[in-house]
C-alpha cells in the first residue's frame, strides 16, 4: 500500500536540491566555453561561439596529459596495492583479535586516524628524501600505508559480519593461511573491496597537500596541484582556468557516470556491515 504512491513532496525537494547541485557545474562549463569578453557580458547565457579550443589551450598550459598520466599512475597503483595489502592485514588482525598484540595493532592503526597531518608533515618530507622516495612512488607508498588506518577499520568490521566457519574448515583441510585468504576470504570481500577502492580512488586522485610537499619536480605534479599552480600563474584567464578545472574533474566524473550505480551500491553495501 505504501509502495504505490509517489511521494511528490520528496520528489520536489530533490528537484530543488538538484538545481543547487548542478548550478556550480553549469557555471563552470559556461565559463570554460566562452572568451573573456563574452563572460563579461553574461556568464550563464549560452555562448554565440562554442570555444572548444579553450580546452586545448588550457591543456597545453597546464601540460594536461602529463599531469593526467601522473594522477592516473598514482591512483591506479595506490588502489591496486591498497586492496591487496590492507585486506590481509585486516584479516590477520581479525583472526587473532583475542591476542593482545593484534588487538593492540588494531587500535594502533585506528588511533593514527586522529593524528593531524601537519605534525608529521615536515618529518615525513625529511625521511622520504633521505630514502630517495620524494617522488611519485614514494607518494604511492605513503597512500597505501596511511590508508591502513581507515581501511583496517572497514575491513575488520566487514570480516566480523562473515560466518566464522568458512575459513576454519579450510584450515582444517590443510590449506595454508595464505591460500585460505586468497581462495576463500578475498572473494567474499568483494563488497567492501569496492568501498575501499572507491574511497581510495577519490582520495588519491583529489589529494592536494601531500603531493604539494612531496613532489618538487614540475614534471611529477598531479592534476589538483596543477590547478593550484594554474590559479596562481594565469588567474586572469577565467575561461582557461575553468576549462582546466573541468578537465581535472572530468576523468573521475566520467568513470562515475559510467559506473554510478555500481559505485553507490559499493559504498552502501560496505557501509551496512
Amino acid at each position: 500500500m505504501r509502495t504505490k504512491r509517489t511521494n511528490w513532496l520528496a520528489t520536489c525537494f530533490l528537484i530543488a536540491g538538484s538545481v543547487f547541485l548542478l548550478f556550480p557545474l553549469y557555471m563552470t562549463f559556461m565559463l570554460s566555453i566562452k572568451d573573456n569578453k563574452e563572460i563579461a557580458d553574461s556568464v550563464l547565457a549560452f555562448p554565440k561561439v562554442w570555444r572548444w579550443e579553450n580546452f586545448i589551450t588550457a591543456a597545453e598550459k597546464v601540460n594536461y596529459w602529463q599531469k593526467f598520466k601522473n594522477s592516473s599512475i598514482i591512483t591506479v597503483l595506490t588502489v591496486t596495492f591498497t586492496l591487496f595489502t590492507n585486506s590481509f592485514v585486516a584479516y590477520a588482525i581479525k583472526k587473532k583479535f583475542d591476542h593482545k598484540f593484534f588487538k593492540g595493532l588494531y587500535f594502533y592503526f585506528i588511533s593514527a586516524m586522529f593524528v593531524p597531518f601537519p605534525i608529521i608533515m615536515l618529518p615525513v618530507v625529511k625521511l622520504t628524501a633521505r630514502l630517495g622516495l620524494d617522488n611519485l612512488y614514494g607518494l604511492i607508498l605513503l597512500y597505501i600505508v596511511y590508508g591502513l588506518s581507515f581501511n583496517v577499520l572497514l575491513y575488520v568490521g566487514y570480516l566480523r559480519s562473515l560466518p566464522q566457519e568458512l575459513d576454519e574448515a579450510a584450515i582444517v583441510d590443510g590449506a595454508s593461511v595464505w591460500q585460505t585468504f586468497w581462495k576463500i576470504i578475498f572473494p567474499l570481500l568483494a563488497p567492501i573491496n569496492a568501498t575501499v577502492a572507491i574511497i581510495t580512488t577519490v582520495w588519491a586522485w583529489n589529494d592536494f597537500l601531500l603531493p604539494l610537499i612531496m613532489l618538487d619536480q614540475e614534471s611529477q605534479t598531479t592534476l589538483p596541484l596543477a590547478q593550484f599552480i594554474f590559479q596562481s600563474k594565469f588567474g586572469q584567464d577565467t575561461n582557461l582556468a575553468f576549462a582546466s578545472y573541468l578537465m581535472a574533474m572530468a576523468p573521475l566524473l566520467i568513470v562515475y557516470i559510467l559506473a554510478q550505480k555500481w559505485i553507490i551500491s559499493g559504498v552502501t553495501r560496505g557501509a551496512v556491515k
Partner: protein
Amino acid sequence: MKKNNFGIYLLLVLPATILFFIFHTIPAVMGIFYSFTDWNGLKPTYKMVGFINYLNVFKDKDVLDAYLFTFKFAILTTVIVNVVSLCIALALNSNIKLKNFFKGLYFMPYILSMLIVAYIFNYFFANFWIDIMGYLGIEKWMVNPLGNEKGAWLAIVFVTVWQSAAFNTVLYLAGLQTISEDLYEASALDGANKWKEFWGITFPMIAPFFTINMVLSLKGFLQVFDQVLALTGGGPFGVTRSIALLIYKNGFSGNEFAYQSANAVIYFVVIVAISLIQLRYLQKREMNL
C-alpha cells in the same frame, strides 16, 4: 598448531606494520620531539627548550582565535551536514520519480576535489552572490561574503556542506535500507504519524550510522584545510584561519616550526579527546533508544 599459526599471521602483518611505523609513527614522534626544541625548520642546529613552546601557545591570541574558528566551523558544519544528508537520504528512500538519477546526482559532489570545488565557489561568491542578494532585496548581504568578517566562515560552511553531504547521505541511505517494511506497516496500522514514525522507528534503527557519521564528520571538519586555503586563505584578517592552516602557514612559510609543532601536539590531544567523548556519549544514547 596454534603457536605455529600465530607466527604466520605475525609474518603477514609485520611488513605493513613496520612500514606504518617508519612512515607514520616515527615522523609523529619526530614532530613531538621538535615541539620541545627551538628549531625553526631551517637552521642546521637546535637546542632543547622544554615546555616553553607549549606555554607560549596558550598565551597566543592567533592560536586561540584559530581554535575558536575551527570549533565554531566544525560544530555547525557537522550539524548541518548531518541534518541535510539525513533529509536527502529520507527523500531518496521514499517513493520518488527518477530514483536512480537522483541517487547518482546527490552522490556526485563526493568525487569532486574540494580544492577545485572551492575555486568554483570562489568565483560564484565574487560574481553571483551580490546579484542574488540584490534580487532578493537583502541589501545588508550584498557583499562578497568571503571578504567579510561576519560572512566568510558561513561561506566556508556552505561550500563544505555542498561537497561533504554526499558521503553521509549514502551512509544514511544504507542505514535506511536495512529497515524492513514490516516495521512501518505495523506502525501504520497503529495510526502513527510521520513525525512519530521517524523518531519511533527510523531514527533508532539508523542510530549506529548517526554515531559514526557524527564522529567522522566532526573529526574531519576539525582538520579543515583545502577549502579554507582556496576560498579565503584564512582571511579577512585571520578570522577564518583554521588550526591546520595556521600550523601549515606559520610553521612552514613562517619561522615557527617548533612552536607550531607544539600547537599540533595540543591539537592532536584535543581531537582525540573530543572523538572519545563523542563516541562514549553517542553510544550511550544509542543504547537508550
